């Protein structure tokens, strides 16, 4: 079974209460946004973290992508707020 690792950072991680989930990789055409809808039903923390999509950013296999991107055969998805480094 192919596995998708999902990493959370900053307040997304805090709201969910853990820094990663591991799930069976969804069908290749599934978008990140659709997966977030599904995960939001998992726990109140996921729901709170994913409520405001405008404040979420994503990376697939460590490259930034928009939330409407299909997950394809990626192994790692990361969900986080807009970055504030520098």
């Amino acid at each position: 079974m192919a596995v998708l690792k999902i990493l959370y950072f900053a307040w997304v991680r805090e709201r969910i209460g853990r820094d990663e989930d591991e799930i069976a990789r969804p069908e290749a055409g599934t978008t990140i946004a659709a997966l977030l809808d599904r995960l939001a039903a998992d726990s109140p923390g996921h729901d709170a973290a994913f409520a405001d999509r405008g404040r979420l950013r994503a990376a697939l296999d460590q490259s930034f992508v928009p939330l409407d991107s299909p997950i394809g055969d990626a192994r790692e998805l990361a969900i986080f707020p807009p970055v504030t480094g520098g």
Partner: protein
Amino acid sequence: MADTLVRVGVADFDPGAELARLEALPGGAVASFTGLVRDDGGLDALHLEHYPGMTQRAIEEIVAQACVRWPLLGVTVIHRHGTLPVGARIVFVGTASSHRVASLEACAFLIDWLKVSAPFWKQEQRRDGTTGWVEAAGADDARAQAWRG
């Protein structure tokens, strides 16, 4: 081929030593930027979280873009993570070139792009014991996008 150095870690750095490395290249023009934890009143420290698997590569990609765009002889980017007290150094960008304009522009480009595309998140730890995540500034996005023009 520019001599590039990208370092992500907890350790502090010595801007003088980093400048000396760039000055040793045969360019004649070295520009740099050092970012420090600013005391906004009530701030004790910044905690910088990052995405370990992605950070180094994301910065190397930005450095590679700068090297395509300007005739650079050397580039150094150092970015710290962890808990950094007010006044601590967070980030260093240094560029060496044979041309003043190239070194200055590339340095500004690098720090503008680091702000919007390096996976770091800052959390404020205030003296009153509260914490809060820093919100991304729209002005930073605009500055980075301006380099596309």
